[in-house]
């Protein structure tokens, strides 16, 4: 009998097109499901420790101001208050940039974001924190901290920040201009460029050229669970932190850098996480809670943000301004594209403009192209990753322009994408060659879908307009980073799977299924658990759609090690050469003998040495993800309101390990993208104060705003993963805004160039463009 798993180990790339799986592709109940639905699962804010104090953070009322003085004496004198911290309690860190999660972080800026030092750079910037015996005392103490500010003029958008003479946020900042360091203080942190071919020639070949400028607002991930951290600074100077994080090891490393301590002094215990979407790859409260514990005589301190603090004090994603000029020959072939994009990073450099420069045109073959990207600091919260960071706004711009070209040429919008779609062997705009991807498959599947083949529905009320739009999305994923797992075979035949990758979207069951598939067991035989930073090797964050891919490879490798050990144990048992022992579907056999995994596990029980495996890997793989979405909308032209009538999301997922959670990721990404498309946006007043920092006023779609989102899974296996996995979590948020914009254009003849496409913005577009409707 063939041993496919052993074969896979020989080659880094295997053909997985025709594989048959026993476990992968089924829908077992997730291991953590019962605790979640019965409310037993423990989240960060559920931690209760003896003598625990409650911390609260004082935040800046100004968008930009110099801190002249901070007097905490009255706060400290309030009964119940045990400690107050400010940036004076933090070391001044060197301005050094390191990779953290998917992005890069400058340690000094990270520290200054956690507690402002000389200046506050946004409304909501943390200035000080208190720990007290009750939450009320902590809140009251905040009012007693006297901070003297010298308010400064502020800039909220990239356009404002880039103007000559704009107020400067960071005096030391110089533009990294295509690798060369600028000389004058600026808000432009960097200017990067991707280019190829000859733009002039490309535009000369074009039969039609469309040029538009798009602007998008700041949006937040909107995870339900606010940030929280509980810390104990022990009398032995060991620090234990319970928190909600997408990466416990990364959180540990960031705390260690900010507090200038070795990582071995810090243990991070990851609790269940109530959503992250990239926003919980950065630390805010952890060092504050630890310092408060230290200053209050080693008492445990818990700090949990309010919803306003989450909006005002943690990283949303960038607002942006994106100019796209694109030309197409009359046969629909895109001949040239020029893009200029500026992304607002918030208070410190680090917007996702780099990712955006990839997303914007990578789904297409581009001969003549130039993309310029600017990273710009603004008086808004320092951005954090948000699901395919930078992708939604970028694709909103490019997919709108491609749609408009198709309309002008009279070409079906999906045909337009088929004509130009990238495939294996093409070169990406940002450089690398494209390996096996399933983009054109998503286009074909979308075109053949019942949704696309059906006529538009009639308006629900006479006078309303209906329209259909499509858009595609590309996301590179992060098929790298480090993943470590340990596997222990119990003597009852079950298997413990110890991992360090935060389970946000069902990854425990996805890991258990990959191990079960490898070993020929059932998912229920595997007991997956996410443990603290002392108990498993280093793991990078659950981000970049990397976990099912990278940690999955580690799990598979650990499984192969277990298989090898089980063969050796059987060989000893039967007194044969281990090379003559086969392993398939959970049965170990040689010529005359065979034994099931569980039975062998019992026989070689604890007394004979445990069967265990620990693996740490850092795959340098590939796993680009692509998606094509279709949406029907109904527009009330009298009010500007857009209703989503029907939504279909087609995505190449490589191989769907657990299709229900793949569909969940696709639906969730589409839902967030629709929210971004329709109503989500930070609103600031003239002084740069955030006005809508609540879930009432920051309008995330409710269940009444969304139809059932139909997820269509396309499986073009990824050749760099043993089971063909591609990350699935991020790309579904890329197409929605473009698809909705194109549907609005189809319904009304008006092109939206601003996000969100709120009733106000749609009305304004109808008023200004009403006379030039297509």
């Amino acid at each position, binding site marked *: 009998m063939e041993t496919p798993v052993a074969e896979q180990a020989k080659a880094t790339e295997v053909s997985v097109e025709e594989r048959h799986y026993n476990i992968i592709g089924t829908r077992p109940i997730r291991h953590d499901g019962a605790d979640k639905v019965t409310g037993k699962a423990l989240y960060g804010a559920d931690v209760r420790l003896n003598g625990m104090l409650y911390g609260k953070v004082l935040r800046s009322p100004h968008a930009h101001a110099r801190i002249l003085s901070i007097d905490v004496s009255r706060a400290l004198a309030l009964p119940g208050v045990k400690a107050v911290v400010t940036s004076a309690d933090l070391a001044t860190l060197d301005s050094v940039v390191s990779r953290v999660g998917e992005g890069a972080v400058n340690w000094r800026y990270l520290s200054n974001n956690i507690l402002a030092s000389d200046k506050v750079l946004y409304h909501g910037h943390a200035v000080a924190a208190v720990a007290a015996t009750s939450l009320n005392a902590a809140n009251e103490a905040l009012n007693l901290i006297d901070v003297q500010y010298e308010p400064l003029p502020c800039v909220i958008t990239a356009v404002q920040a880039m103007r000559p003479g704009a107020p400067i946020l960071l005096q030391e900042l110089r533009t990294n201009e295509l690798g060369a360091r600028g000389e004058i203080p600026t808000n432009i942190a960097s200017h990067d460029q991707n280019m190829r071919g000859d733009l002039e020639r490309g535009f000369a070949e074009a039969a039609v050229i469309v040029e538009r400028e798009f602007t998008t607002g700041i949006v937040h991930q909107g995870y339900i669970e606010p940030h929280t951290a509980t810390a104990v600074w022990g009398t032995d100077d060991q620090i234990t932190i319970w928190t909600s994080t997408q990466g416990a090891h990364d959180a540990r490393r960031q705390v260690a850098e900010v507090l200038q301590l070795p990582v071995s002094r810090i243990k991070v215990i990851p609790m269940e996480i109530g959503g992250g979407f990239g926003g919980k790859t950065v630390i805010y409260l952890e060092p504050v809670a630890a310092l408060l514990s230290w200053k209050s005589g080693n008492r445990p301190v818990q700090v949990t943000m309010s919803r306003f603090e989450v909006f005002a004090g943690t990283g949303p994603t960038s607002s942006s301004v994106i100019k796209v000029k694109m030309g197409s020959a009359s046969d629909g072939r895109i001949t040239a594209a020029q893009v200029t994009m500026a992304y607002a990073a918030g208070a410190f450099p680090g917007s996702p403009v780099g990712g955006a420069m990839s997303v914007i045109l990578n789904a297409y073959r581009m001969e003549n192209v130039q993309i310029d990207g600017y990273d710009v600091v603004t008086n808004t919260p320092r951005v954090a990753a948000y699901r395919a960071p930078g992708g939604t706004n970028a694709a909103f711009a490019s997919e709108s322009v491609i749609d408009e070209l198709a309309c002008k040429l009279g070409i079906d919008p999906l045909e337009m994408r088929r004509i130009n779609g990238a495939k294996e062997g093409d070169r990406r705009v940002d450089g690398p060659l494209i390996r096996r991807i399933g983009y054109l498959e998503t286009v074909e599947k979308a075109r053949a879908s019942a949704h696309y083949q059906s006529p538009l529905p009639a308006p629900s009320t006479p006078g309303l307009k209906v329209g259909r739009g499509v858009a595609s999305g590309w996301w590179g994923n992060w098929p790298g980073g480090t993943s470590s797992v340990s596997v222990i075979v119990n003597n009852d035949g079950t298997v413990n799977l110890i991992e360090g990758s935060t389970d946000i979207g069902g990854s425990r069951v996805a890991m258990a299924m990959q191990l079960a598939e490898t070993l020929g067991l059932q998912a229920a035989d595997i007991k997956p658990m996410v443990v603290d930073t002392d108990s498993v090797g280093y793991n990078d964050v659950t981000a970049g759609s990397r976990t099912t891919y990278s940690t999955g490879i580690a799990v598979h490798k650990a499984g192969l090690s277990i298989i090898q050990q089980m063969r050796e144990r059987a060989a000893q048992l039967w007194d044969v050469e281990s090379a003559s022992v086969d392993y398939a579907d959970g049965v170990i056999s040689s010529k005359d003998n065979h034994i099931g995994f569980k039975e062998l596990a019992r026989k070689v029980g604890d007394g004979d040495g445990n069967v265990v495996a620990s693996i740490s890997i850092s795959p340098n793989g590939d796993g680009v993800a692509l998606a094509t979405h279709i949406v029907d909308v109904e527009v009330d032209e*009298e*009010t500007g*309101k857009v209703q989503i009538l029907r939504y279909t999301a087609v995505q190449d997922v490589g191989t769907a390990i657990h299709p229900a959670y793949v569909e969940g990721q696709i639906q969730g990404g589409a839902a967030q993208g629709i929210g971004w498309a*329709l109503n989500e946006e930070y609103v600031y007043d003239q002084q740069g104060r955030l006005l809508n920092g609540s879930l009432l006023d920051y*309008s995330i*779609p409710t269940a009444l705003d969304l139809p059932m989102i139909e997820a269509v899974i396309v499986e073009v296996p990824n050749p760099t993963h043993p089971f063909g996995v591609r990350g699935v979590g991020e790309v579904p948020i890329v197409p929605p805004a473009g698809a909705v914009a194109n549907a609005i254009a189809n319904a009304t003849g008006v092109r939206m160039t601003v996000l969100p496409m709120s*009733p106000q913005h749609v009305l*304004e577009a109808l008023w200004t463009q009403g006379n030039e409707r297509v």
Partner: protein
Amino acid sequence: MQAFEYIPATTVKEAIAILAREGEQARVLSGGTDLIVQLREGRRKVRAVIDIKQIPEVNELSYDPATGLQIGAAVPCYRIYGSPAIAAAYPGLIDAVSLIGGVQIQGRATLGGNLCNSSPAADSIPALIAHQASALVMGENGERRIPIEEFCIAPGRTQLQRGEILLSIHIPPVSPYSGGAYLRFIPRNEMDIAVVGVGAWVALDQSGTTITAARIALGAVAPTPLYVPESGAGLIGKLVSSETVAEAATIAQAAARPITDMRGSAQQRSHLVGVLTRRALHIALKRAGYKSA
């Protein structure tokens, strides 16, 4: 949240005595869906919170086709739309009470609270004004009745004097061939505060073709909910037509004094007043028995 004294009053007299003593330092609690949020967020500071839910009079809800509808100040929304007789008689009011917050909020929130909170964007107030409702108020010197359109004087401020409490809201009996409607515009389909709200009420003659009375009130386009008598007056004596309705909408638009804020621009609001007034009038006319040709 700052500490306060919670006082469950059992009689109107007791509540009035505390209100007279504490003045601005006391606040009446009925459903609490505004007050508790304001206290928690530090937007309002009080020394005493007087819970009136144990006072029998303010929990009364009664409807008599001859005398009209009496809604005690502590009656939550769900009781109003839960009564088939009331729902049939006052569909315009039901439009408003069934979209305040969500189902959970409607289990607690009261019209009395919505009125006394005096938000310019309150959903029930334009509907109450359109229905010619009045407020029964009691103080140390006895009762007085205030038309709803005069009740709110500024955002968060009402006609209530020191020591006065809202007892109930009264809506006159419905005449035959009359109908009301309330429409609000929000960007989502639920859980939002009105960008614009419009309450409309019309009465037709027996032929069902000529308007004999009409009242229009607007929300979220002025410092207080706004009664626009001239908009309704312009309709009286006219035959129902799209043109007459559009004229009333234009008059309402002219009366609106909207501002730009995070929920919408002044221009958008002014435009929406026209759209919603027209739509609300059409619904009200249909409910009044007008059958379009």
